[in-house]
C-alpha cells in the first residue's frame, strides 16, 4: 500500500504561549492510504490538521506536500496545493447563506470555463456520492441534521476531486448506523478515487473499518505509527489502554464478526 510520500512533516513545533503542543514531530503520509490520527484530548490532533491544511503556521519545522515546501512557497504554489486538497471540518463549516448545492459549487468556480449547467450537474453528483438525497441540494445548512451537514461538508471537500482529503472527526455525533455508513463511504471513495485520507478521529470503529495505518499522537509527537495489529502490540500505557479498553475490545469483536 505504501505509495509515494505525499505529505512529509519534519521537526514540527507548535505552541500556544508557553504551552507546547507539538515538539519535533515527524510524520509521513503515503499516497492512497487512509491514515487515522488518534490521541488523547489536547494532544493537538486538530492543530496538526490545521497546520497541514495551511490554516496555522507552525513555530518551527517543515511541511512538504506533493514534494513542495508548503511553508516557504509563493502564494500561487500554495493555491495550487490547496486545490489538490480538501478539508471537511467537524461540523461541516458550510456557508450558511448558500444552499448545499451552491456550497459544493463554490470551489468549482475557481476553474475557468466550467459552465453553469456542468457545475450544477457535478455538484449534484458530489452530493449524491456523499450519500445525500437529491432534494438536499436545495436546502440551506440550517435545515439539515448534523449527519447530513457532515455529508454536505464532505461533498464540498470532494468538489474538485482532491488527491488528499482531511477529515476532522467525521463520525463524531453520528448515530451508529450513520457512522458506519460514513466509514463505508470513506473507504469506498478512497478506493475508487485513489484518495489519500488524513483522518482525525476518536472512533475506534472507524479506525478498524477504514484506516490502513494509524498514527498515535502522544508526548508532543507521533509516538507510534503502524497498522491496527501493530498498535495492539505496543505496550505504552496510554496506547495500550486506548486499544485494549472495553470500547476497543467491543470494536474489535464487531470487526471479527463481520470479517
Amino acid at each position, binding site marked *: 500500500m505504501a505509495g509515494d510520500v505525499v505529505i512529509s512533516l519534519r521537526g514540527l513545533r507548535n505552541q500556544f504561549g508557553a504551552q507546547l503542543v507539538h515538539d519535533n514531530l515527524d510524520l509521513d503520509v503515503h499516497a492512497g492510504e487512509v491514515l487515522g490520527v488518534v490521541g488523547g484530548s489536547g494532544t493537538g490532533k486538530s492543530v496538526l490538521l490545521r497546520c497541514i491544511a495551511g490554516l496555522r503556521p507552525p513555530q518551527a519545522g517543515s511541511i512538504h506536500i506533493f514534494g*513542495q515546501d508548503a511553508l516557504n*512557497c509563493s502564494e500561487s504554489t500554495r493555491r*495550487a496545493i490547496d486545490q489538490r486538497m480538501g478539508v471537511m471540518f467537524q461540523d461541516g463549516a458550510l456557508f450558511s447563506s448558500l444552499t448545499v448545492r451552491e456550497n459544493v459549487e463554490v470551489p468549482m468556480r475557481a476553474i475557468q470555463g466550467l459552465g453553469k449547467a456542468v457545475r450544477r*450537474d457535478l455538484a449534484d453528483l458530489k452530493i449524491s456520492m456523499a450519500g445525500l438525497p*437529491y432534494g438536499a441540494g436545495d436546502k440551506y445548512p440550517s435545515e439539515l441534521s448534523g449527519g447530513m451537514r457532515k455529508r454536505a461538508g464532505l461533498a464540498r471537500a470532494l468538489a*474538485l*476531486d482532491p488527491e488528499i482529503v482531511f477529515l476532522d472527526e467525521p463520525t463524531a455525533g453520528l448515530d451508529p448506523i450513520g457512522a458506519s455508513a460514513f466509514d463505508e463511504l470513506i473507504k469506498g471513495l478512497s478506493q*475508487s*478515487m485513489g484518495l489519500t485520507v488524513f483522518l482525525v478521529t476518536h472512533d475506534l470503529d472507524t479506525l478498524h473499518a477504514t484506516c490502513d495505518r494509524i498514527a498515535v499522537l502522544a508526548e508532543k509527537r507521533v509516538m507510534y505509527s503502524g497498522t491496527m495489529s501493530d498498535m495492539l502490540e505496543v505496550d505504552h500505557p496510554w496506547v495500550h489502554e486506548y486499544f485494549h479498553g472495553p470500547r476497543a475490545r467491543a470494536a474489535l469483536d464487531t470487526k471479527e464478526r463481520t470479517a
Partner: protein
Amino acid sequence: MAATRMPVADPARQGAGAAGFRLEHGVDSVHLHGELSVRSLPLALPLMNRLGGNALVLDLSGLTRLDTAGAWALLQLAARLEKQGQSLELRALSADHSALLDRVEQAIPEIAQPGVLRRSLSDLLDALGRVVVAAWGFLAGVLAVLGIFLARLGYLARHPSEFRMTALIYHADQVGWRAIPIVALMAFLIGVVLAFQGAVQLRQFGAEIFVVDLIAISILRELGILLTAIIVAGRTASSFTAAIGSMKMREEIDAMRTLAIDPATVLFVPRILALLITLPLLGLVANVMGLFGGAMMAWIELGISPAMFLTRLLEDTGINHVIVGFVKAPVFAVIIGVIGCHAGMQVGGNAESLGRQTSSAVVQAIFAVIAADALFSVFFAMLDM
C-alpha cells in the same frame, strides 16, 4: 532556503490551465490523451460533444488521470450517444477506472425536472395576501413582546427578590451612559445649525431675538427627544437584536427554557427597563446641549449674549414644551426596546438571518419612533398644548 530546496513540480499537474487533454481520430477509434478531470473539463467537454458516429470506439490507453468529473463526462457522452441510437465502446479501460465509472454511474442522481413557472394574477394576489398577513403577524408579535414585558414587569414588582439588578445596571451603562458623548455632540450640532439657519432668515425682518424661541421650542418640543431616540434606535435596537439573536441561534434560549429560566424575565425586562430609565435622561442631555449649542451660535452670529438668551428663554418659553418633549421619551424607549427584542427572537438558525433581523430592527425602530412622534403631534395639537 526556500528557493534551493523547492523540488520541481510535475508540470502536467501544476495550475488549472496546464491540464492537457486532446482527442486523436484514428482509423477505427478515437484516442484520448492526457487527463480527464474537473480541471481539463472546460477543454474536454466541447471536444467530446462533437464526437458522434455509429459504434464509436474510444481508446483510453493514453488517459493519465480520471476523476469523478471525468467519469461523469464519459457517462454523459455514452448517454447522449445511446439516446441518438448509437453506441459507445471504451477500449483499454483499466480496472480502477472501470470501478470509478461504476461508482459514479450509481451515484448520478435522478433529476426531477422543475416545472415551468408562470406568474399569473392569482400569484400576485397571493403574494399581496402573504405580505398583509406577514404585516399583521409582525404587529401581533411586537404586541406580544410588549405584553410579555408588561406582565413580567408586574410579576417582578410583586416579587422584587427575583429582579436582576446587576443586569439592569449593566444595560443602563451600555445603552445610557455610553451613549452620552454621541447624543451630546449630535444635540450640540443641531443647536448650532438651527441658530445659524434661523439667524439668516430672521435677520431679514430684524427679528433676531426670536431665534431664541425658535431654538427653544424646536429643541425642547421635538428635536431633542426625537433625534436622541433615533440615535438610540440605531445603537441599541441593533445591539438588542444581535445579542438576543445570537443566543437564539446557538439554542441558548432553548437551554434557558429547559432550565426553567424565563427568557423574557432575564432578557427583555432588564433591557427595556434600562432604556425606559435612560432615554429620558439622554433626552435631558440632548436638550441642554442643544440649547447650549444654539446659545453659542446666537452669541457669535447675532450678538445675543448668553445672559440675554437665558432671560428670553425663561420668560418666553412655556414649561409645556418641555413636558410635551419628555412625555414622549418613555414611549419611544418602549418602542425601541420591544422592536429590538422582538427582532432578536425572530432570528433563525443561520448567520444571515441574524444580519437581516439586526438591520430590519433598526429600520423598524426608527420608522416606528417617527410614526409615534407624528401621532403625538396630532394629539398635542388637539389638546392645545
